[in-house]
């Protein structure tokens, strides 16, 4: 309980700083901070907004988990963007090619996306293990290649020729699409409007979050992964094969990026086109940081991030620039990283003192009697 209590100190400070800074920005631009926050709050607390937040937050959550699993091992996969793109494109292109019963079809498409994302991520992994190439550099560069490659593949092999006024793949057949959750929440007395859909990717994201926790915190693989991240030399001495760990982890990371794209492909965007939502892979890096690489923290972070994004819609009605939400997100991220670090150091100093006190406490009586 106490741990959770002190755990909330840092985020509270971060939220405070973010609110103060964005209020200042609002005042400087001649707007009322109170009006702005009220408009945002009013807009974001509607059921429709909540549904949108969950629909957008779920893929963001999964992509952030992918980034976080790399971070846990001090492996900086900045290439989630490319892995996400290729996962989306290849899954979209292959989904119409076969027909299967619904749940099997969905799982098959997801697996294809994960294999595509994972394979793309394996390239920097192999480069790092075999040639010592820094993964930050190689993953960033592979993002550009992925952008070009996906545009080329979309325009040539994967294009649906029957559509003349747009460049897109064929649509994913109905059997491959995730069902909406409207019927499910109906059971709990929540009635959504006809044109509001709570998308079926949310349970997938929750399952991935739980799996992330179990794998990282409870399995030996997760133990090896965390120890390698904290002290590579000690992990190696303890018998961890660091090369294998790098490859496995970066593939997992890429697979999650690919899977995240299914949050859109298998729901309302049932095809890949130039209008397919991109960019959340980069956001995922920030969300993973904000969530301290912990599945629970990232869930909160993804929700908060998507909420601010959504809340900016409320600013439009008040004629306040929506960029204020970007300031809010940015300051939140920076102040969170700083305040988490401050709290971590304070806790560390405290436990060092405790250990020293312990050492002294057991030392003195023995020293006095002998």
């Amino acid at each position, binding site marked *: 309980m106490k741990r959770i209590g002190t755990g909330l100190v840092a985020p509270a400070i971060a939220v405070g700083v973010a609110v103060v800074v964005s209020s200042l920005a609002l005042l400087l631009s001649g707007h009322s901070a109170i009006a702005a926050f009220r408009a945002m709050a009013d807009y974001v607390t509607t059921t429709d907004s909540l549904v949108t937040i969950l629909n957008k937050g779920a893929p963001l959550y999964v992509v952030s988990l992918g980034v976080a699993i790399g971070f846990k091992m001090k492996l900086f996969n900045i290439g989630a963007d490319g892995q996400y793109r290729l996962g989306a494109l290849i899954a979209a292109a292959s989904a119409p090619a076969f027909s299967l019963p619904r749940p099997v079809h969905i799982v098959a498409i997801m697996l294809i996306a994960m294999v595509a994302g994972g394979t793309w991520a394996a390239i920097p992994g192999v480069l790092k293990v075999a040639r010592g190439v820094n993964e930050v550099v190689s993953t960033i560069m592979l993002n550009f290649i992925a952008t070009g490659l996906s545009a080329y593949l979309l325009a040539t092999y994967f294009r649906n020729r029957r559509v003349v006024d747009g460049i897109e793949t064929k649509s994913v057949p109905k059997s491959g699409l995730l069902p909406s959750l409207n019927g499910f929440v109906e059971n709990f007395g929540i009635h959504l409007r006809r044109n509001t859909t709570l998308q079926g990717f949310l349970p997938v994201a929750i399952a991935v979050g739980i799996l992330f926790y179990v794998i990282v915190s409870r399995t030996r693989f997760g133990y090896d992964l965390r120890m390698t991240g904290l002290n590579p030399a000690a992990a190696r001495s303890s018998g961890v094969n660091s090369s294998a760990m790098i490859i496995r982890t970066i593939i997992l990371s890429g697979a999650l990026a690919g899977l995240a794209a299914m949050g859109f492909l298998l729901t309302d965007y049932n095809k890949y086109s130039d209008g397919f939502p991109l960019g959340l892979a980069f956001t995922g890096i920030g969300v993973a940081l904000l969530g301290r690489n912990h599945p629970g923290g990232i869930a909160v972070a993804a929700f908060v991030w998507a909420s601010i994004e959504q809340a900016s819609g409320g600013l439009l009605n008040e004629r306040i620039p929506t960029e204020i939400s970007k300031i809010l997100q940015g300051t939140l991220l920076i102040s969170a990283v700083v305040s988490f670090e401050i709290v971590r150091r304070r806790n560390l100093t405290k436990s060092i003192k405790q250990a020293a006190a312990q*050492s002294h406490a057991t030392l003195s009586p023995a020293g006095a009697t002998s």
Partner: protein
Amino acid sequence: MTDHAPEPTPAIELRGIVKRFPGVVANDGVNLTVLPGTIHAIVGENGSGKSTLMKTLYGAHRPDEGDIVLGGETVSFKSPRDAIARGIGMVFQHFMLADNLTVWENIVLGHEPGSAALLNRREARRSLRELGFRYGLRIDPEEYVSELGVGDKQRVEILKVLYRGARIVILDEPTAVLVPQEVNELFTSLRKLTTEGVTIIFISHKLDEVLAVADAITVIREGRTVGEVRPGDVTARDLAQMMVGRELPRPVPRTDRPSEEVALMLDDVSVAGVSDKAALDHVSIRVHKGEVVGVAGVEGNGQTELLDAIMGLRPLLSGSIELTHHRLDSMSTRERRDAGIGYIPEDRQKDGVVLAAPLWENVMLGHQDSKPFSVRGFVDRIAARNQTRRIITDYDVRTPSTDVAAIALSGGNQQKLIVGREMTAGPAVLIAAHPTRGVDVGAQAAIWDYIRSARTNGLAVLLISADLEELLALSDTLLVMLRGCVVATLDPVKVTIGELGAYMTGAASGGEAA
């Protein structure tokens, strides 16, 4: 400073220094009197309060009670800057030098001669050369620090302090990083400094070195001054007893004999070095069940490579390694661990513990895929915590709980945790590098006892140590390594420290006294 004073005023007097930290009284009434132009050693176990006292003197924190008197005048330091202004300089154990700068650049850094805009390079070099000449600390000012050896870097640190006008130099464990030849050079330099009127405070727990170099010795135990002695009046044993406050354990002569069965066999093992010279050069070692084979040698003569070769952390150029008739050569580190090799690494913070992880996760390290720590790929946290509790009790690890990060523990307690972890796993062979490095004398005796009793129960131990006393106390057979080769096999009962030293430095060769 006058050369001939009838009644010298002490350069430093500390009177009744008390320094409390939350829950700890680190210094509890320490008195210290240091005469000018002398080398004054301060000895004490780890955690006895030496470092706290020196930080007080250096102005890093202020004492809760007591006075600091410099040359008869009571002073109060708000920060190290005040102490430096008063001519007190400190050379830390870990060097604080910029590798990519030259010697002179490092030394003048922060105190550059010349105007604010222009650095007077010629003046800097000149004053440095003069300083080096005056104090007998010869070093090329144009050399890059990255090119220097450890001994030279230390000289740069001392020069840096002198350049800032220090007349009192505090050296924190200066010999910990030096090889024996460099230690001698350091001592010569220190004596030269004292003839120039510089006062030296020398913190150490290497008693023979203290006896060799100091003019006076103050012993500290549990934050209090135990006494001041002259090196001529005491032996290392007396000093150790003052430090510990109890009898030192005498090595018990062994009554039983090791088994004839070979547990670990290295046959003609070679490992590549940085240049074309092999770092490990056709080494053959046999360790029998129930035997401790000690490896003596100046650090850097192939010991690290030997450890890496056995643990599978470095590829072999030639030769083979067998563990009770199973070839290890093609096994991974993990497989070797699982085959029954316990490992106490040389550098505990680098290879032995994960500082940011809690103790119970550190106890799993190296044993994470065997019982009780993991079952079918899942970590058993309860079993791991129980095991950690057992090790904390059995090995007297001082910690508030099993869940604090390893970094919260002192080095000695970390070491006890590592030793406990490896011994509790019940290995067939223990590869122990410096098993008692940094632990206090009491814990050292306990660790030695553990190794002895495990040996009696059939454990084969390969012991690599820089502590000759430890090697002589534990080993059944003593090997000496020099330049990647085993140059002598000795009987620890018959060998003298002098002989051992001769083999270690290459002054003698071909020993087969066993």
